[in-house]
């Protein structure tokens, strides 16, 4: 550890002055407008994957600019046109553009595109998925694009077309993919929480979707190595090594240090424990990173899953990360008997894991599950108690009120993290 860097990063934060202190000096928080020294210190202290480092560094360099102003629809469409002109030689037509709801972290615009490409005529409903100036999770559109490409043909995902990695054409970085049809929850059931959390599919639909849910997860986790090797924005993961997992821990520990409004010893305890106990990979999987109800669409008539969405947190790593995530308390609910917990509102945990082992041919290791329960709660605590509060205070997103609302998940997750750490430490 670079102790000097650590001290400089930690000791500069004091949002309120103590009695008798100079108020101007005390209220300087380097995170509000990070300078190069601050950024360099964090990059040295928390090494992570190159593309993630690029995204996080860009985030910090942008912070401190004037308050967010949501672009008009016309401005966004003009950006789409610039991107398409860059990629297409022939004429194209954009129609029916409109804002699309759903998702707490990205701006989405639906539109119809007619275009010619090498003599072939295309006509598609498409979606622009674009970053706001600040997000509850700062991620790479290039990585998301590559993850979607890797999963294509293996599980249903929207077909990807173009990506603007650094916002050279669009107002902000974004990607364009096909608009998938379907719903995230039964249209005739009452609304649950925001972002699909705690969705109740009903007792008849659960097993139908649950079987597909498990089968798709197994397919994602067993994507062939040669396909994973095409994912150039990912640094790769090595069988028998825990280096990739430690990089992931560094990723979120760095984000905590970048975003937090106040210190929290719990986060440091978790990060240290995770680094010291990181398991070596026994299989390199494509990990979705946010695999749960709310992130897939299904057709209500055929009851078939039509698309897996939100791949922005995908990594090459350990399957237990997804398994611990989707069996987490906040994404499920109890069945009508009041006693059976349904993971992601779909299947009892034991049945889900048993089906997963059969479908994937990969074992479920309880010790790894526990490790990734700590990891996931650690990362979620960073998102909710660190980043969500930071970006909402900045006014940096397209839906600050939702982000601030989601931040209230944080204390429950942090309490779960504390309890699990008490068991393992």
């Amino acid at each position, binding site marked *: 550890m670079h102790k000097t860097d650590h001290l400089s990063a*930690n000791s500069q934060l004091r*949002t309120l002055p103590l009695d008798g202190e100079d108020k101007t000096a005390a209220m300087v928080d380097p995170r509000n407008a990070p300078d190069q020294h601050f950024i360099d210190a964090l990059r040295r202290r928390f090494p992570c994957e190159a593309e993630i480092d690029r995204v996080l560094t860009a985030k910090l360099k942008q912070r401190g600019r004037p308050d967010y102003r949501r672009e008009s629809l016309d401005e966004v469409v003009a950006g789409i046109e610039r991107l398409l002109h860059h990629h297409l030689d022939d004429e194209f037509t954009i129609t029916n553009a409109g804002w699309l709801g759903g998702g707490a972290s990205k701006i989405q615009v639906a539109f119809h595109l007619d275009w010619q490409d090498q003599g072939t005529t295309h006509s598609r409903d498409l979606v622009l998925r674009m970053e706001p100036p600040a997000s509850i999770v700062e991620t790479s559109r290039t990585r998301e694009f590559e993850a979607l490409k890797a999963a294509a043909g293996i599980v249903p995902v929207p077909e990807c077309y173009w990506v603007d990695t650094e916002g050279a054409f669009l107002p902000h970085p974004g990607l364009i993919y096909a608009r998938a049809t379907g719903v995230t929850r039964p249209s005739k059931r009452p609304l649950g929480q925001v972002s699909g959390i705690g969705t109740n599919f009903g007792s008849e639909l659960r097993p139908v979707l649950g079987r597909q849910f498990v089968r798709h997860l197994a397919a994602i986790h067993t994507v062939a190595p040669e396909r994973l090797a095409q994912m150039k924005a990912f640094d790769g993961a090595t069988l028998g090594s825990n280096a990739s997992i430690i990089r992931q821990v560094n990723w979120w520990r760095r984000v905590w240090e970048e975003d937090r409004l106040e*210190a929290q010893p719990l986060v440091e305890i978790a990060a240290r424990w995770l680094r010291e106990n990181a398991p070596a990979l026994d299989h390199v999987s494509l990990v979705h990173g946010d695999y749960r109800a709310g992130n897939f669409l299904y057709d209500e008539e055929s009851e078939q899953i039509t698309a897996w969405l939100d791949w922005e947190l995908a990594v090459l790593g350990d399957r237990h990360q997804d398994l611990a995530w989707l069996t987490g308390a906040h994404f499920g609910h109890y069945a009508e008997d009041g006693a059976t917990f349904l993971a992601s509102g779909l299947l009892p945990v034991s049945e889900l894991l048993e089906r997963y082992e059969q479908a994937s041919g990969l074992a479920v290791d309880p010790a790894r599950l526990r490790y990734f329960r700590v990891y996931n709660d650690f990362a979620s605590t960073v998102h909710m108690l660190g980043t969500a509060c930071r970006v909402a205070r900045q006014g940096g997103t397209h839906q600050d009120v939702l982000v601030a609302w989601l931040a209230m998940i944080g204390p*429950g997750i942090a309490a*779960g993290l504390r309890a699990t750490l008490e068991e393992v430490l």
Partner: protein
Amino acid sequence: MIPDLELQLSVTIKALRDVVLPAIDPADGVATEQAHLALATLGMVRAHLPLRQKLAQTELSNALAMADSLDTGATAETALATARNKAKAVADNPASCQDEMEAARLSLLEEMERLIADVPADRFAALGRSCLASMQPQLDLQRRWVADAGFDPDATGLPAIEKMLSQSPANAKGTPVSR
């Protein structure tokens, strides 16, 4: 008199609920969701507003209890001890304002997080366990404070927030969370 905060909040909530929300185009899902969240947030603020001073006092008290559990008197803990002495003076002064209590609490948290980061490996587990045990009252308080958001059903099993704010950390009892 001038309209007090309670009055201003209640009329704002009424206007949003009775006039603004019904006027939103139902097809605009984002606007509808944000309007509902704005209303719910204002309702929560209205309920919590009278409790702010007690919250600041209790949170500072909880942070002091955490610091007590970590400060073993060794040289490395000197910075924490200094922050703790300052925070204790703020906590003991009945004239302390919310900003002063908050500043003292933040300073304590900074020193505790730094201590955890820097503690040698052979002391990490013991110090970590002490810290984890001592932070439960604060996490329970935070869970109860945001329980009405509905994300944490177990939080409703905790004592009422008014009761938690009048308890000292040593007397507070936690409620397990579902995992």
